């Protein structure tokens, strides 16, 4: 049985397998909304590897963190720009 950990995204609890990135967690368990573009479009990851910066969310109070490059850790608090 794979080890799981719990994080919160926009106040909602999410349980994911250890080693999952924050981006993968949101794409699996939540709505694909991460960032708001300058003209107000909702965006989600494009490149999956830290190049496009579309996956930016606020993690533990720090903004503009690339969620595709951040492994989810127990108790992490994630806030996206466009909460569902």
């Amino acid at each position: 049985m794979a080890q799981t950990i719990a994080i919160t995204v926009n106040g909602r609890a999410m349980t994911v397998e250890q080693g999952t990135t924050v981006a993968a967690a949101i794409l699996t368990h939540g709505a694909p909304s991460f960032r708001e573009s300058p003209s107000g479009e909702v965006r989600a990851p494009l490149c999956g590897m830290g190049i496009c910066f579309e996956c930016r969310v606020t993690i533990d109070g720090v903004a503009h963190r690339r969620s595709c490059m951040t492994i989810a850790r127990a108790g992490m608090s994630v806030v996206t720009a466009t909460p569902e």
Partner: protein
Amino acid sequence: MTERFDVIVVGGGPAGIAAATAAAQRSERVALVDEGAAPGGQIWREGIHAKPIRAAKIRKARLAASSVQHMWSTSVVDAKRDRDGFILLAEGEREPIVLRARSVVIATGARERFLPFPGWTLPNVVGVGGVQALLKAGMSVRGKRVVIAGSGPLLLPVAASLSKAGARLGIVAEQAPFASLARYAASLWRSPGLLAQAAQLRASFLGTRYATGTWATGAEGDARVERVTVTDGARSRSYDCDLLCVAFGLTPNIELARLLGCEIQRGSVAVDDAQQTSVPDVFCAGEPTGIGGVDLALVEGEIAGASSVGGKATAEQQGRRSRLRSYAARLDASFALRAELRSLATSETLVCRCEDVRLGALQPTWTSRQAKLYTRAGMGACQGRICGAALEFVFGWSSDSVRPPILPARVSSLIATAPPSSGEHSPSGVS
């Protein structure tokens, strides 16, 4: 924190791992730095579920057993030469790290080429290597309807991975015409192993159509992608989908090489037989010297690593590199991008996603610098990494020179190299 090394290898994918391990055979002061949380880069990224590739496992073990000091989750944001060698400014998860070395090996890999088309900014439109990375990072696609449309040999293994992960593949569309692919397959007669591998991959998603000479013209949806239209030039067809994977081959990550002043030829870093760039003591290996795949990256890494500490390539390495380079050249020609892809975007389609610049706001007669000044296209967080390749393909604009920081960086990191003491250079580009 400042640390001194003989060699710093930037990039922990196959080339970087090979280079660092090779350099460590002659030096105990070798560092390996990578943005990712673990070694492997993209192609050797260890999946949450997937079994690791044997070659990757062996090489990573060799790295772990060596004296290489590795730093993961560490991004190099600036680099310059001083009288003792090189200073690299990097960012860890919380703090800046200043690294000094006599030589540098650039093994920064490649990224995917994205071309704009109507609807490409919708959530759940991702890359082809991108979806692979997300799968490995724990994203589930079980039961999801997926369409892959793009170009390159990556389409096959990614389709196979998605299928294995329980996705329902609608279609796999390769823009290259059948004739090009047939020629490419024929050229692989020298590598029957590769042909067998391709056949095996295709077999794992036999229920899905693999169409050549076919490309996506538009994606639609409300809050996320719901449908994609593909065409073969004569007929169009729409597929309902939950996830759309579209990317057109790979393009080298050469920002660090540009920053250090390395000569770039046709979008790749120029290197000599020792994998040295035009800048003394700066070496380069893997995709940045030309897209060529993992085996070429490994041998180039081995040679670059050895060269960086005064060693030389062996005859075996030279022979291996030579063979693999000619394979890479054939790849290029087979998957050339068709002209129709230049006119998929309408004037309303966004080209720069970071700053929301529409195609219609750009004048074809401009240079990329003018586009930055007049519209901010290329001035956003990705620093033109996504729109740059597209604008080059659509308008023929070549990339500008780079300025530090080559990745968005924290102010505290930039301050870290501010000079208090004499003899140090002041940070450039801080405005």
